């Protein structure tokens, strides 16, 4: 009896969401870091609202990037260590959808909560009111790209030594375009009430990532078994 690719895809989603549910507390780690890191800014630079507001778009975006980096380490690590990755690699189910499922669940577990929490951080940074919606919209698309690009780094460093720092070194330069357009989206929205262009670019990056990143990840996962 053949199982359809959709059934296989669904089984991966189901498994990863179940695992998420069993480890609910771990979801909080990047979020707590997010708040902690943003709180450092006024403590380091002084609480003057004007200063904070000017820095807010960039700071919140940078902290979202760093929080996302933190969560990447575990994307494939546990599957690699308990042998699930081996089974995925030799399974008749196409690896592309396995990887896609993992990335989507990871985004739901990290990017989505970060996006939903971002208004709180905007508040801490005295972000002007017109910036809240653009912040969430840009982060929604941006965190998706962060998971996709970061997944490439996570897969490449699976069987390498000192993978933590190496992962950051590889992934951060690739994050730079996201940061540029994301922070600019918020800032431009505040200054000129127009941010469609930046949002479109972020969307395009996410689309390219959705298409291309799984292939790079697949190659890297196969290499991790040698």
């Amino acid at each position: 009896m053949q199982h359809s690719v959709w059934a296989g895809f669904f089984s991966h989603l189901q498994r990863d969401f179940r695992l998420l549910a069993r480890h609910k507390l771990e979801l909080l780690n990047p979020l707590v870091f997010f708040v902690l890191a943003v709180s450092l800014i006024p403590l380091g630079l002084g609480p003057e609202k004007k200063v904070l507001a000017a820095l807010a778009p960039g700071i919140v975006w940078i902290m979202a990037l760093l929080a996302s980096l933190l969560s990447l380490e575990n994307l494939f690590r546990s599957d690699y260590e308990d042998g699930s990755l081996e089974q995925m690699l030799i399974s008749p189910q196409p690896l592309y959808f396995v990887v896609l499922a993992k990335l989507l669940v990871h985004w739901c577990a990290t990017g989505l909560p970060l996006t939903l929490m971002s208004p709180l951080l905007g508040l801490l940074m005295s972000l002007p009111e017109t910036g809240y919606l653009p912040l969430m919209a840009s982060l929604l698309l941006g965190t998706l790209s962060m998971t996709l690009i970061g997944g490439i780094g996570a897969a490449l460093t699976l069987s390498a030594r000192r993978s933590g720092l190496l992962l950051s070194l590889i992934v951060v330069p690739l994050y730079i375009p996201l940061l540029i357009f994301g922070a600019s989206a918020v800032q431009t929205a505040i200054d000129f009430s127009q941010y469609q262009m930046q949002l479109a670019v972020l969307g395009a990056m996410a689309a390219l990532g959705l298409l291309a990143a799984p292939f790079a990840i697949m190659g890297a996962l196969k290499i991790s078994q040698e």
Partner: protein
Amino acid sequence: MNWQWFHRLGSPRWFYEKTTGWLPWIAIVTGSLLVVGMIWGLAFAPIDYRQGNSYRIIFLHMPVAVLAMVGYYAMAIAGAVGLIWRMKMAFIVMVSAAPVGAVMTFLALVTGSIWGKPTWGTWWIWDARLTSVLVLFFLYMGVIALQQAYQNRDTADKACAILSLVGMVNIPIIYKSVDWWSTLHQPATIKIVGQSSIDPSMKYPLLIMIAGLYLFFTLAVILYTRVEVLRRESRTQWVNDLLTQSVNKRD
């Protein structure tokens, strides 16, 4: 189509033996080009009406910056060839191009910084070009660090090839983003060197330097590749013969 030369290129031994003959010639041409270009550019080219003598660093800065990016593409293409055709030599070239390209990038940063001091009064400025070169430097560091982090050499090669390809796809995106970002924050960007507005008397030394540095890059990669070939093929007969030969010569 005669693919023989392509497959012969894949033999480390063939590469080593051929380049032993070519090296002196390449070195001579490279040296001459660089010396002529440097002297012409630094001493004889006319003074720029805006920047005076300080613009002369461009004769080193621009070719080096170009090669920094070309080097990354060369590395990525070598990696792709290695992945697709399973060619050992391609991976060896990729691994050798990485440090050479990284040094080019570093030189571009340093010369850019030296240029910046008299021009903007500061050792560092976040303009489009310098920032892009800095990000390129990080990309190189990532590939080199990835190479070092793997114990198994074949796995390291394949991982670096994938990373280089991912970087290659991202470089245009990064450059465009940084370019756009710099226009956001510095609306009055002074185009230090306009592409078409360069005076012919400055053009020739620049072209000579570009050619010279391309050759220098090739020379350096060949040298690194030869060492890597010896290292990887150290168990084969021809390498052992080579080494005993050179030991005997010394006696």
